């Protein structure tokens, strides 16, 4: 493969990753932090603060 073909594949692959990130991963990662700390909020004071 030549340079342009390799760069075309990497560019398309990256843009596909961006699409997957936007539609799937970002909500999952954002939700993970929210779930964890909202759950902690609902528990009795730990005294760690």
């Amino acid at each position, binding site marked *: 493969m030549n340079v342009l073909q390799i760069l075309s594949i990497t560019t398309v692959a990256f843009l596909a990753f961006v699409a997957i990130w936007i539609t799937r991963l970002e909500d999952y990662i954002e939700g993970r932090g929210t779930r964890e*700390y909202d759950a902690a909020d609902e528990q009795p004071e730990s005294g760690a*603060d």
Partner: protein
Amino acid sequence: MAANQTVVTWGWGFLIAYFVLIGALGYVAYRKTSTQDDYATARGGFGFLALAFAYAATTASGSTFMGIPALAYAEGFKAGYYAMIYPIGIYLGVLLVARITKKVGDRFGSQSVPDFLGDRFQSPLVRLLAASIGLFLIFYIMAQITAAGFVFESILGVDYGLGIWIAGGLLLLYLTAGGSYADILTDAVQGAIMVAITVLIVFMFVTGWGVDGGSMSAVNAALEPSMQWDTHLSSDNATFSSWWAIFLLFIAHIGFTALPHLGNKFFAIKSTQYMKKFLTITAVIGMTLPLMFLGGVLAAAQGIQVQNPDSVIPVLFVQNLHPIVAAFLGVAILSAIISTADGIIISMSQIFANDLYRKTYVPWKGGDPEGEAVNQRALWISRIATVVITVVAVAAVITPPEFLAILLWVGIGGIIASTGGPYLVGTFWENTSKTAAITAMVVAFSVYFVIHLGPQAGLYEGWYPYNENPFAASGIGFIVSCVVTLAVSRFTEPLPDGHLNDVFGTDRGARADGGRPEPIESDD
């Protein structure tokens, strides 16, 4: 090079029109800027589209529009590995950190990336270290001003020495009054112009403009064998010496997101609910602009001769297009350079006004960093610092500095190596500790100094390609920064749960009044 008289005449006309446009946008921005936070961040002031263009324009500096085409002019197609790999690294980093930077920045009222790190790790020392390294960004501004001087010389026939002062004056015209609003507003317009130029360059390349045969294959055939698209590496060039070096170029640019003039843009988006649209559009624009490297390849195929390779794109325009079009495009390239310089100047001004004065000196003296008098004083420091930084940067390149690239990478590589790890790891892993962040900053910068800056300063020979290749050295520094952050966090105390809740919990809105974050309805 002797500038074509028609190009010069029309170039001045377009330049004056550009001054008027930028001045008008600067005035609009001035009307929106009444507080220190406005000047520093333009918090919540822009929609996703304007900010996406502005972010891409800020990322694609004079290097993308001059340096990379110059590299392609000298090295051929393999320069594309730099041109098209670096944005993948940068925008991958953006995907990772943008949302939390916006969320936490608004929640704590952070006004810069060093400030964000200080707030994230509850550490004035982290803020101070990041701000101190950020001072080296002055060399980045100097590089942009130098590039602007060369464009003035190539397109407008203006002496380089006068060109750099005109560029400095242009920056001060809108930045001093309008701060971040002016920076982002003008960058959005400049970004749109830059996309148009890139599309033109791609069209010229695909149609083999000015090359016998009129196709991409004809362009390739017109090049020397070592520059053709079947040649991937070059043992003579440290950037393309191996696939490992190219991989490190990618790694280094993931940490590029930690540069203050890029990270502070996230504060300006209206709400995190627009973040997905912003990320999508800015990634596409960001992957488009570096296609400018094809212009350097085309110039080499056409056999264009230039004294200074950095001028290859302006010369390509002058020799191939109608003088009026060439003049317009030359001024547009100037706007590309200016769009990066302005962002760095604003972020540097915040090192003085916010990081050192408002968040370090004021609390040290027992004052309230959120007080009205302090904020007004910080606003004035911002404006004065903007003027001083610009004048110093221009004065420093009256004679184009011989070692500017080295100095440039003291700042960029140093920031990537030192703050990249704490920034990225701290974004995803709640247990990242303050001690780990401080240790990583010191250790990774030291590693970067040993493998790159020391050899570049002539202290010793060093190890190839790290001694010559700033990307590879920054990539190693960034990896060390991440590993040290992770490793030290395992053995040190994490931050208090209450603070981590404030950082990672459900959105609680901005902290404009200086009080503790309060729950509000989610904006998602």
